[in-house]
């Protein structure tokens, strides 16, 4: 089996390694880099738990070989927080609307919804549901997740306004 030298950026940090051809990106992130926020659920492309951003777009890291990520930029759920131990606006909204129970799907949901909000500041409920359509959740029934993303969208829009308008907007 062929071995390959790869270099890529993960959450802003450059990483180099030698990987076997068959190693998937999710296994590399979790086992080699110990970035265990990205979850391995089905390992064959069905559940979305393993979603990461690859060059800015959400993909399933169980369907991407580590060697294929060579030269690219990866962002995992760990890269969404402003700094370790804190929550970004989107994550905070998940917390506030009870958008997680066991949390297994959450990292994938966060990646999918982060990508949505980066492209569309005011998504409709349908657009939110479409964006997380590839992510399975066995606990919440999705309602709270959709609420969380809508709440985060609203807050992120407000965060771009000068303080006074934002305050008016809240009321």
């Amino acid at each position: 089996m062929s071995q390959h030298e790869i270099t890529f950026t993960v959450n802003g940090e450059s990483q180099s390694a030698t990987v076997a051809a068959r190693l998937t990106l999710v296994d590399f992130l979790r086992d080699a880099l110990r970035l265990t926020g990205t979850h391995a659920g089905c390992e064959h492309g069905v559940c979305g738990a393993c979603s990461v951003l690859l060059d800015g777009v959400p993909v399933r890291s169980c369907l991407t070989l580590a060697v294929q990520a060579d030269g690219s930029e990866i962002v995992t759920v760990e890269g969404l927080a402003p700094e370790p131990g804190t929550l970004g606006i989107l994550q905070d909204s998940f917390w506030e609307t009870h958008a997680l129970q066991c949390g297994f799907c959450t990292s994938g949901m966060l990646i999918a919804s982060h990508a949505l909000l980066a492209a569309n500041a005011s998504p409709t409920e349908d657009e939110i549901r479409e964006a997380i359509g590839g992510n399975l959740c066995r606990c919440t029934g999705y309602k709270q997740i959709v609420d969380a993303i809508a709440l985060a969208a609203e807050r992120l829009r407000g965060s771009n306004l000068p303080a006074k308008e934002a305050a008016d907007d809240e009321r």
Partner: protein
Amino acid sequence: MKAAEFDYVRVASVEAACRALAEAGGDGKILAGGQTLVPMLAMRLLRPTLLVDVNRVASLQVIVAGGGEIVIGAGTRQSDALADEIVRRDLPLLAKALGFVGHVQTRNRGTVGGSIANADPAAEIALAALALDCEIVAQSVRGVRTIPIARFFQGAMTTALAADECLVELHFPAAPSGGGRGCGFHEVASRHSDFALAAAAVQLALDGEGACRSVAIAVGGVGGAPLRIDAATERLRGTTLAAEDLAAAAAIVREVVEPASDLHASADYRRRVAGALVERALLDARSEALAGRN
């Protein structure tokens, strides 16, 4: 679930991909988006000795229009095709079909050609490509050849591609020009973006009087491969697509298809649904065409 061992090579050109496939002597596989291949490796349904990664072959990721046709590079990402101006303008049926394919995450990796090469009987891209009568260009160290899509699908997950061939381009005839053109795509699936239990694709053109100048009808998910329903096409040409014409076309569809029963749906269900979906797709296409005529 982990794939068995294999070798991997990343190539920068179609020629290099063909050489690698030839050297692998039938045990090599093209790795494009990997959205079907990688799960099959993980489940060990496939055990290739070599994966030839074509993701960075730039010439495979182009969409160009000209000379009465639209050429889509086989490695074009489904999400790129879906967002592409040329596809939206000149291949509206393909654009409609792409909306049903997978999820955001899989469309960001999955390719247009990969879906066709994979030949899932219920896949939407293959169905639209069949209705649109596209031509498939394949290359190997032995040369380049063009395969009409009508001869491409040979059964579930089986195509006319040889083991050493790389799918390179899809050539779509430009949609009938002038006003009065419309298309429709409908499917029934257990969840949006799942493979279809049955699906229908229709493209047609009306003349100034509202009579049907040309029409193409294809159904998917109801047999080993997507199927053109030419008898229904015959029945509709020249008509105004009145209710009884559409009902007659649907009856032909129900007669012609030979679906199988499985865990997800019975053969009878699929047959009835295929007829109904063709009717709905025809209705959509007709109203689009009527709206565009003026």
